[in-house]
């Protein structure tokens, strides 16, 4: 178990029992060419082109980049710079649905006969990225750097953010496929030990998972670890710590301690890409919070959030706000004409909080230090960040912050700690870049 973290009311009962529902084909999609860590994809289509569902519209531009596919069939009405939920802009392909459903026929493959390089290539061309939020290209993760060795593959089924239930539903409804995806991953990185980490509130999945292990075709040994409900249990570093007791060194990667971590939906996407030749063009997300019809929806990438909200009859009244992602790390949006991306896990309608509209000076209560899972000293860093002294912020290890939000959550003075730390990190990066 890791030190720190906070216990949150999970609000998962709102959408936990809603079956995954296929969202109807949207009228229009906006598909950003930069949905992942690394360089944006290079567009390979132009305005006026007719594309079919699953067709490549952007090619990976370098090693750390990803392929992008059209999620519907239709006509490209523009390739423009569009706003993303993060507030950044990205070149995006806008496709208008022409009412046809044209798909490439599936390619059935037996993964047991595929070499690791072939699997990595399939994953790369299917445009698969980490679907937990960071959207790191999965093919890069599967290519173990020389000199390193993976010992165990972890599947992250914690979903520790309140409200979100999409990973839970996927694991419940597609248990066999997810476990097969995990098997494919393990074969690719030649590891025969895997562990699925779930939080205690998903304990009902245990028999399902155990049953699915009977289907394992390789010599893989899978373990399920039921972890206490504590945010941020689903953080990669803390999941590794909880399961293997190893600490990823500061500035290092999980592979440095012999671990690789995958999200539930990423494993499913890998299985679909390898066994059926399906590129990553849809994902499951949770629509929850103060909304009339909470749902878990399978949505085409690029669908506009406004269209989804309309479908769930979610009006945003005064005093409510719309969040993309979870309540702890998600992004508040005002413009609803933004697209769903590969890393979008939820759309939430939450009440505005009066408490946080002003903040007070730090009273040094030390609660932020107690809850910080990275064991840095938010109270102290915030005092320097407030006066823009980035140098001391850096010395106090602000760079180790994972932006989980525990400190801001607990702070009795309601100081926007994480906001300052993000800013500090960006400024430090800028200074390093300029020498």
């Amino acid at each position, binding site marked *: 178990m890791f030190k720190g973290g906070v216990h949150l009311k999970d609000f998962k009962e709102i959408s936990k029992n809603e079956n995954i529902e296929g969202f109807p084909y949207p009228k229009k999609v906006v598909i950003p060419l930069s949905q992942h860590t690394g360089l944006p994809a290079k567009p390979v289509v132009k305005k006026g082109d007719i594309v079919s569902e699953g067709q490549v519209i952007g090619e990976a531009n370098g090693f750390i980049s990803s392929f992008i596919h059209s999620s519907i069939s239709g006509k490209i009405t523009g390739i423009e710079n569009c706003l993303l939920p993060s507030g950044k802009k990205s070149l995006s392909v806008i496709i208008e649905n022409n009412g046809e459903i044209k798909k490439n026929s599936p390619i059935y493959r037996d993964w047991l006969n595929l070499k690791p390089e072939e699997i990595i290539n399939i994953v790369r061309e299917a445009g698969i990225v980490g679907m937990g939020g960071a959207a790191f290209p999965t093919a890069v993760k599967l290519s173990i750097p020389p000199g390193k060795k993976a010992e165990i593959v972890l599947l992250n089924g914690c979903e520790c953010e309140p409200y979100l239930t999409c990973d839970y539903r996927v694991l419940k409804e597609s248990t066999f496929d997810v476990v097969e995806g995990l098997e494919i991953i393990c074969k690719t990185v030649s590891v025969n030990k895997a562990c699925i980490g779930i939080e205690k509130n998903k304990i009902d999945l245990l028999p399902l998972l155990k049953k699915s292990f009977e289907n394992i075709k390789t010599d893989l040994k899978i373990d399920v670890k039921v972890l206490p409900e504590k945010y941020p249990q689903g953080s990669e570093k803390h999941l590794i710590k909880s399961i293997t007791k190893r600490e990823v060194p500061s*500035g290092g990667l999980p592979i440095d301690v012999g671990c690789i971590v995958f999200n539930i939906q990423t494993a499913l996407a890998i299985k679909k890409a390898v066994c059926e030749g399906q590129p990553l063009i849809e994902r499951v997300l949770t629509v929850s919070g103060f909304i009339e019809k909470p749902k878990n929806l399978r949505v085409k990438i690029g669908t506009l959030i406004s269209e989804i909200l309309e479908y769930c009859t979610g009006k945003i009244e005064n005093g409510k706000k719309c*969040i993309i992602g979870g*309540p702890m790390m998600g992004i508040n949006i005002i413009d609803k004409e933004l697209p769903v991306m590969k890393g979008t896990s939820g759309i939430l309608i939450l009440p505005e909080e009066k408490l946080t509209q002003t903040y007070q000076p730090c009273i040094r209560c030390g609660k932020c230090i107690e809850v910080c899972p990275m*064991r840095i000293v938010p109270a102290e860093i915030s005092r320097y960040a407030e006066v823009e002294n980035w140098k001391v912020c850096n010395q106090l290890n602000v760079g180790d912050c994972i932006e989980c939000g525990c400190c*801001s959550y607990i702070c*009795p003075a309601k100081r926007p700690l994480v906001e300052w730390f993000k800013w500090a990190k960006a400024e430090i990066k800028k200074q390093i870049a300029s020498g």
Partner: protein
Amino acid sequence: MEKIRWAPHIHSKETISTIMLSVIIALIPAGIVSVYFFGFYALKIIIVSITSCVLSEILAQFVFRKKIKIYDLSAIVTGILFAFVLPPKIPLFMVALGGFLSIFLVKELFGGIGFNIFNPALAGRAILLASFPVEMTEFYPPFYYKIDGITCATPLVIIKEKMSLSLPTLYQMFIGQRAGCLGETSVLCLLIGATFLLLRRIISWHIPISYILTVALLSFIFKQNILFHILAGGLILGAFFMATDYVTSPLTNKGKIIFGIGCGLITFLIRMKGGYPEGVCYAILFMNILTPLIDKYSLPRKFGGKR
């Protein structure tokens, strides 16, 4: 115009006001008992102290053109704590003056809540003790107002001056039936309040326990009565309510333990060898100065950092 809010989008309900309110609630039992033992005048002292602190805070924030932030209740906490460390028959103008100095000089001149170096209530007491040494050391026995009061030495003074007076029993000291400052005498009531704060996780055990254990251990080593030293003077009030003041004590648990041990050492040193019979006030003030230094050397090992 809607404003974009930054993550996280949910927050705990705890605010500075709720924390301060809890501290006020925790201090109420000891306050009631002090009025019971030391009469209506004790209540007057508490009310004058709170009023003076609150008004001084408003004045300071007005003079320094800051937002008036009385609603954080911190001035009320200082007011109660300041009254608790005063003798039971102190003239009221001194109370008012002390309250003003605590807030204006010790707290607001250093930047207000979160920025003061010294515990305001204790620093206020230290200033008064230097300014009015006679009035600040005139103690009265419990129920003095009924028996036409004559001054009476506190248990620690009796020990220090090797007086031939009889000491109160340990039981009397536990419930608070002894001479002393208003709020410090009833250990029982202070412990009730402290338990409340510990359970609500407003304070942690680190400072009070390391503080009290240090005093106990030193009493044992130097062949003193351990229970007497824990119950006497302002140790319990100081350990649970003064030394745990967030602003002036270290941030980390490791630092808090160092802080507590330091307070214990100095308290015992003053009690045994100092010019004053009691050392809690100066021990905590002295350790307040060391807080930034302790903080600097007690940072936790970051996740994934070198062991």
